[in-house]
């Protein structure tokens, strides 16, 4: 068993216009930088991206927005870049804003074969419009559905050729959830290791969920809000 491919180009084979993608990361933390660059190079258009955020003007999904490759964003928080705002206000870009926990749960549900579930998040708000409302223990909940995605693009720390991976720090975020949910899950890692090097007891994403894995290159890992305190 060998899921290792030779870089982003091979990893994204089959990625086509108008597909739906899950893209891991929170802000610019834990985003699949190599896959994003490759998509810019490929020039695929009409993409629907399920991703918590939409990058900044010159990094992350902002690079795809800049080339007008994204038709629709499904996110919980966006608009940290000017081109995004312009496209949203002009109507070029569809934006579906959903609660962050619901976003996470809909990815997870897709991965674990649960087509629908009930959550209290969004009840009584415009998020609930058109959705089934149901009371459990006297409390209103709305029904939400699992996502579907042609590709899930995931960034991890280390992984082996069986596709077992671990994440580092809060770069974990949506990545393990999306890894479970893609029809084709692509993981780019900072370090490819041999099977057996990762402790079976501490695997974040078991290889069964992963179809393709490769060692990424030239990670920039940009920091959005550098906040520090002075050493005295």
């Amino acid at each position, binding site marked *: 068993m060998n899921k290792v491919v030779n870089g982003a180009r091979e990893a994204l084979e089959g990625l086509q216009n108008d597909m739906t993608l899950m893209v891991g990361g929170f802000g610019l933390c834990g985003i699949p930088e190599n896959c994003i660059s490759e998509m810019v190079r490929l020039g695929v258009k009409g993409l629907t991206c399920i991703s918590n955020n939409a990058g900044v003007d010159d990094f992350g999904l902002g690079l795809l927005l800049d080339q007008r490759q994204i038709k629709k964003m499904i*996110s919980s928080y966006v608009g*940290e870049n000017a081109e995004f705002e312009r496209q949203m206000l002009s109507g070029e870009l569809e934006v579906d*804003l959903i*609660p962050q926990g619901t976003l996470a749960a809909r990815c997870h549900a897709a991965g674990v074969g649960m087509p629908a579930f009930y959550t209290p998040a969004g009840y009584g708000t415009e998020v609930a419009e058109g959705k089934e409302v149901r009371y459990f223990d006297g409390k209103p909940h709305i029904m939400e559905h699992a996502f579907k995605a042609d590709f899930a693009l995931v960034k991890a720390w280390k992984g082996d050729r069986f596709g077992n991976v671990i994440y580092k720090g809060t770069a974990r975020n949506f990545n393990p959830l999306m890894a479970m949910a893609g029809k084709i899950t692509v993981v780019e890692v900072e370090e490819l290791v041999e099977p057996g090097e990762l402790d079976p007891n501490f695997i974040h994403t078991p290889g069964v969920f992963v179809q393709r894995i490769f060692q990424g290159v030239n990670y920039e890992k940009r*920091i959005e809000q550098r906040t*520090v305190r002075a050493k005295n």
Partner: protein
Amino acid sequence: MLDRNQIAKRISKELQDGWYVNLGIGIPTLIANYVPEDISVVFQSENGILGMGPFPFEGEEDADMINAGKQTITAMPGASIFDSATSFGMIRGKHIQLTVLGAMEVSDRGDIANWKIPGRLVKGMGGAMDLVASADNIIVAMMHTNKRGQSKLLKSCTLPLTGVRCVKKVVTNMAVLDVTPNGFKLLERAPGVSVDDIVQATEGRLIVEGDIPEIELD
């Protein structure tokens, strides 16, 4: 009148030893600076960490360690890191004892609006809708009135809602109020602010009973 730091300091008095706490962006973030020394609380950041510590020392920032405001952070001893589904699982499952959020409007039934102003650019609700729909203990930290002097404590919210009947307490620059079935109940007033000032600045139903003490900050 309280300033932003004083609002945060007043809310810090609500903290109890052993609580897990989620602080929103803005004034709520400042609360971490005022945790009483004799108690220990654990801060959750909903992007996936419990036991968030202070900002890193200069030069020690790690791009893989951020909070929900995308700021670089550190982890305390005993911290844990997890994915976003688990993080919101903690929230929906009521494992977080206190959530403090900012708001644009709060109604006297406890509705909250803090994510969208029609006609303006909408950035999204982030985790706010999950937080307010789930937590049993939600405190709103905000100014009592907006920049035009209009009350933000209303009979009904005019902006699109983030959640309904969820806010338990409001701490503003003017007052501390509980949300009760009969409206806002005035508990404390800021130094130099009279009950009359608060009545004037509150559009929603306001209950004033007996003597209203001044907010104590120390």
